[in-house]
C-alpha cells in the first residue's frame, strides 16, 4: 500500500512519516506514514497486538521512535525538550483503556487534578469548570464517588471529562469501547463525536471495534504487521479491493488471516501420536 496522500499542511495536526519502532527484536512499526486531519475523528484500526497503543504513546512522546518523524502541530515530538514535551502534552488529552483514574481521589478531584496541577485558578472557578466538564459527560451527580464505585463505562466517561479539563486541541482514545455493555458503548460513541464537534477537537481513536468506530470516524487507517494496509473514509474501506481489509472490516473468521495458527498437517499430526 502506498503512503497516505499528502494534504494541506495547516489541515494536518499529526504527521507521521517513515516511522520505525521495535521492541527487542520484534519490529512493531516498519515504515508507517499517517496524517491526522485537524478537527476530524480519525480511527486507527487493526488486529490486537499490532501496536496501536504504542502509536498513541509515540504521538504523546512517552516512547521515542527508532527512526522517522512524528510531528504534532508542527512540532517534532521526539526532539522536544522535557519542558517542550510537557507543554505539548497539556494540549493533548488521552483516554486510557482502563480510564486510569487516580484511585485515591474522588471523581471531582480526579477531574480537577489537571486544573490544580497546571493552573492557579481559585477553588470556586475550579468547581465551576469541573461541574461543567462532568455535566458534558452526564455524570455531574457522581462527583463524590470514588473510582472504585464506578462502572467501567462511567470510569471512562469521567476520564473523558478529565481529558477535556484543560480544553486540549486533541484527544487520543485507547480502545474506548473494549469491555463495555451496549448501552455505555452507545453513550461513549455518541459522546466522542459530540465532544469532537462541540469543542472543535481533533480525535484519534485506536480500536478494533470496527462497527462502532467506523460509525463516527471521518477517516480510517488500518494497520497490520507494522504497516498501513489500508486507509480512507469508512465508505471507501467497505468497498476496498484488499481482501485483508475486507476480512477485517467485516469480521470474517477466515481469509487472508487464517483461522488456524501455522501447524503441521492435521491428519499427519494426529497419526504421529500413534507412531
Amino acid at each position, binding site marked *: 500500500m502506498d503512503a497516505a496522500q499528502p494534504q494541506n499542511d495547516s489541515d494536518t495536526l499529526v504527521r507521521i512519516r517513515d516511522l520505525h519502532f521495535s521492541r527487542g527484536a520484534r519490529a512493531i512499526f516498519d515504515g508507517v506514514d499517517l496524517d491526522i486531519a485537524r478537527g476530524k475523528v480519525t480511527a486507527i484500526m487493526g488486529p490486537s497486538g499490532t501496536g496501536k497503543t504504542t502509536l498513541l504513546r509515540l504521538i*504523546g512522546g512517552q516512547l521515542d521512535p527508532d527512526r522517522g518523524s512524528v510531528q504534532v502541530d508542527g512540532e517534532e515530538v521526539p526532539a522536544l525538550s522535557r519542558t517542550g514535551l*510537557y507543554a505539548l*502534552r497539556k494540549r*493533548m488529552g488521552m483516554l486510557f*483503556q482502563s480510564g*486510569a483514574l487516580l484511585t485515591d481521589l474522588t471523581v471531582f478531584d480526579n477531574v480537577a487534578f*489537571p486544573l490544580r*496541577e497546571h493552573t492557579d485558578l481559585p477553588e470556586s472557578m475550579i468547581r465551576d469548570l469541573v461541574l461543567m466538564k462532568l455535566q458534558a459527560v452526564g455524570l455531574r451527580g457522581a462527583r463524590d464517588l470514588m473510582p472504585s464505585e464506578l462502572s467501567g463505562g462511567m470510569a471512562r466517561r469521567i476520564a473523558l471529562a*478529565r481529558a477535556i479539563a484543560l480544553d486540549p486541541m486533541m484527544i487520543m482514545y485507547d480502545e474506548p469501547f473494549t469491555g463495555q455493555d451496549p448501552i455505555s458503548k452507545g453513550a461513549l460513541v455518541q459522546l466522542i463525536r459530540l465532544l469532537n464537534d462541540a469543542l472543535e477537537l481533533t480525535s484519534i481513536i485506536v480500536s478494533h471495534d470496527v462497527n462502532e468506530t467506523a460509525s463516527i470516524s471521518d477517516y480510517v487507517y488500518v494497520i497490520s504487521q507494522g504497516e498501513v494496509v489500508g486507509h480512507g473514509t469508512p465508505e471507501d474501506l467497505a468497498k476496498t479491493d484488499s481482501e485483508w481489509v475486507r476480512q477485517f472490516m467485516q469480521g470474517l473468521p477466515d481469509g487472508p488471516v487464517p483461522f488456524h495458527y501455522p501447524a503441521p498437517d492435521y491428519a499427519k499430526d494426529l497419526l504421529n501420536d500413534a507412531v
Partner: protein
Amino acid sequence: MLEWIRQLGRSGISQFETLGRANLFLLKTLVGLPGLLRRPGLLVAQLWSVGVLSLLIIVVSGLFVGMVLGLQGYNTLVDFGAEESLGVAVALSIVRELGPVVTALLFAGRAGSALAAEIGLMKATEQLSGMEMMAVDPIHRVIAPRFLAGFISMPLLAAIFSAVGVYGGYFVGVGLLGVDDGAYWSQMQDKVDLFDDILNGVIKSLVFGWVVTWIAVFEGYDAVPTSEGVSRATTRTVVYAALAVLGLDFVLTALMFGD
C-alpha cells in the same frame, strides 16, 4: 558449562542495570523534593499513610521488646548480683540496636510493602502513564512525597519504639521484678551517652529509613505492570529491605562502635 557461565554473566549484567536504574530513579526523586515545599499537603497525606498508620505496630512491638529484654536481662544479671544494671542493659540494646533495626524491619513490612503495592498498582492501572500524559511528572507528584515521608517517619518511629521499649523494660524490671527504681534510671543515665549511643541510633534509623523507602518506591515503580508483577515487587521489597537493613546494620555498627 559455558552456557552456565554465560547465564551467570547475563544475570550479573541485568542486576547492574537494575542498580543503575535504581540510582537514576533516586536522583530524579531527589530533584523532585524541592517542589514539595510549595505543596506540603502532598507530604502530609503521605506522612499519614506511611507514619501514622505504622504507629500502632511500632508502639506495641516496642513495648513487648522492652518487656522481654527486662525479663531476660533480669534473669541473667541477677546471677551476678548486678540486677541494678538492668536499665543499662535494656537501654543500650534498644537504643543502639533493636530500636533502629526492629523498627526498620517492621517499617519495611508495614509501610514498605504498602508503598510498593500502591505504586505498582498505579503503574498497572495506567495511573502513572495517565499522569505523564497530563504533563504531570509522576516521580515528582507520586514518588517524591512518599520517599520523603518514609525518610522522615522512620527516625521518628524508631525513637518512639526506643522510648516505649525503655518504659517496657522499666515496667517489668521495676514494676514486676523489684529492681530499684532509682538504680534503673541512674545507672542508665550514667552509662548511656547522648552522642555515642542515642545519636548513633538516630543516624542508623535515618540510613534505614532512606534505604527501605528507596527500595519500596523503586520496586513499585519498576514493577512489571501486572498483578503478578506487583505481588513480586511487594515481596521483593520486604526481602531486599530486610537484607539491606541487617547488612547495613553490621557495617554501621562496625563504623560507629568499632573504635
